[in-house]
């Protein structure tokens, strides 16, 4: 690993990663940026295979081919609506890979990798091995739980039980104790090492369990950050600079995204991680009468509108309604209406979830408007159509200081002239909070499956 050419190749890879990430920030350059970063990865891998420390190739070949087939099939076959689950699983596989690399660094046999001196593993290396196992383990089991919640294999709400903090504290203390004992006498067969591994996996489960559905974007981006940090720790364990550089770039990127998500909910990261929001108390009871509307009447109003904005939420993903929404939007545009799509940063189950779905349905990205922009011009919007969104348009966040989501920035659809809310029934949203918007004077409820309702609107417009 001390080979000069290998390290120069790593340098080239690091530069390509930086450029690639930079280009991922602009819609027109993003695809090339991703290709650039993939090229960097290829350079790093090929250079590694040519390094003189690697002498046995048969196992590598088998595992790499199997991994490539699985990865390629998964990437090709996954439905766009299942993208949050996919991202969670990829995070998890990165996490467990770093955990395994850290564990392998324990063995003196992997001399090229680990900084094992003749006398054994240094305390520094032992500590970094522990960190890669800890972070990798938390990433892995946390991602599996997140995947389970997103795929509805596990109950998607927040699970909070009495003494949860006590249990977490206990796991943490045990981790610390076992970690210290291991670092004092590091060896591959140390029972403390196994204990750390098991405790790290348990900690990941415990960390993900109390976080409920609407908070998933935060968890997904946080786990993304962890998968980078795990690679970074593995890099320290085996003294490899490219792992450290790439891992910390990803770690930083994930932290930034996590921060954006938290701001969009007006909550601190600590609050998201530990409060078990979905199970929390609810605010003032909202009373009033909802005013339902038929698809035909709604169609007439839409026909007369000159500015319509769609506000999609997780419900649109569940109903797979993105294609009919686009069809309705095109129909309105042909009618001379200005059509926009207002996207709340935490709409859906991962950062940018709605944007991907609408892109799949061929909605051009310059028609998507961010929250602050649409709020500024909401008074000029004739009809705001809320599709399967609830918390992100909840007026209680502005008006009711006893509401658990009070202070969360929302898309202020109630400032539009008319609001249509497409909703299956009168159940409350994911946060379990009542929404005064539904009782607003200018709100009309269009009950039913989102996809069927939109199709009915299209039919009435065409009639």
């Amino acid at each position, binding site marked *: 690993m001390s080979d000069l050419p290998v390290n120069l190749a790593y340098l080239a890879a690091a530069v390509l990663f930086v450029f*690639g990430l930079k280009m991922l920030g602009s819609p027109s350059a993003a695809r090339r940026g991703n290709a650039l970063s993939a090229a960097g990865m290829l350079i790093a891998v090929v250079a590694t295979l040519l390094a003189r420390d690697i002498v*046995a*190739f048969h196992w590598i070949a088998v595992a790499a081919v199997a991994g490539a087939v699985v990865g390629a099939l998964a990437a090709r076959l996954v439905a766009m609506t299942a993208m949050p689950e996919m991202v969670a699983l*990829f995070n998890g596989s990165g996490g467990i890979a770093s955990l*395994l690399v850290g564990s*392998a660094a324990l063995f003196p046999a992997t001399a090229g990798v680990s900084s094992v001196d003749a006398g054994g593993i240094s305390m520094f290396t032992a500590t970094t091995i522990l960190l890669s196992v800890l972070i990798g383990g938390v990433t892995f089991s946390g991602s599996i739980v997140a995947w389970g919640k997103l795929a509805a294999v596990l109950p998607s709400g927040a699970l909070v039980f009495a003494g949860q903090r006590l249990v977490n504290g206990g796991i943490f203390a045990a981790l610390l104790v076992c970690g210290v004992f291991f670092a004092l006498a590091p060896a591959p067969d140390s029972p403390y090492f196994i204990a750390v591994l098991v405790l790290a996996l348990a900690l990941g489960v415990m960390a993900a369990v109390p976080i409920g559905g609407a908070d998933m974007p935060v968890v997904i981006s946080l786990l993304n950050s962890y998968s980078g940090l795990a690679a970074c720790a593995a890099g320290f364990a085996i003294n490899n600079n490219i792992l450290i550089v790439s891992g910390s770039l990803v770690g930083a990127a994930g932290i930034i995204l996590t921060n954006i998500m938290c701001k969009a909910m007006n909550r601190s990261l600590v609050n998201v991680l530990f409060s078990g929001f979905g199970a929390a108390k609810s605010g003032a009871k909202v009373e009033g009468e909802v005013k339902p509307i038929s698809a035909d009447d709604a169609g007439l109003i839409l026909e007369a509108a000159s500015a319509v904005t769609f506000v999609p939420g997780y419900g649109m993903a569940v109903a797979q309604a993105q294609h009919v929404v686009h069809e309705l939007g095109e129909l309105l545009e042909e009618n001379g209406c200005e059509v926009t799509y207002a996207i709340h940063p935490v709409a859906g189950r991962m950062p940018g979830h709605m944007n991907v779905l609408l892109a799949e349905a061929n909605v051009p*990205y310059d028609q998507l408007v961010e929250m602050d922009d649409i709020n500024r011009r909401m008074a000029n919007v004739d009809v705001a159509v809320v599709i399967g969104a609830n918390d992100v348009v909840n007026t209680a966040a502005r008006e009711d200081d006893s509401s658990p989501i009070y202070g969360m920035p929302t898309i202020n659809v109630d400032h539009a002239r008319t609001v249509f809310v497409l909703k299956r029934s009168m159940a409350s949203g994911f946060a379990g909070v009542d929404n005064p918007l539904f009782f607003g004077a200018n709100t009309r409820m269009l009950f039913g499956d989102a996809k069927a309702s939109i199709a009915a609107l299209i039919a009435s417009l065409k009639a």
Partner: protein
Amino acid sequence: MELLPVYLAFILALSIFLGFELISKVPATLHTPLMSGANAISGITLVGALFAAGAEGPDWLATALGTTAVFFATVNVVGGYLVTDRMLAMFRKRAGPSQSGAASEPQDK
């Protein structure tokens, strides 16, 4: 050799700052591809896995750990880059000359 951890820590600190600077101004539209693209980069742990799986040594357990790591890291890398590319291929700009601000006569298609 004593200084090596310090050099690595230097790399760590500077990379983290670089990461913050690089990502801070990404439009919300690209949050998902950014996340999955960054996730693919975190598959760089594949490099470490290759060293672990390919090193000459008598210990089969280390080789087994490394080989499993190669598998998972490759899933992460290949799947991450391909799925990001698939998503980004769907993002398109409005076809017509009209910008989203202009209210009249959209001329798409």
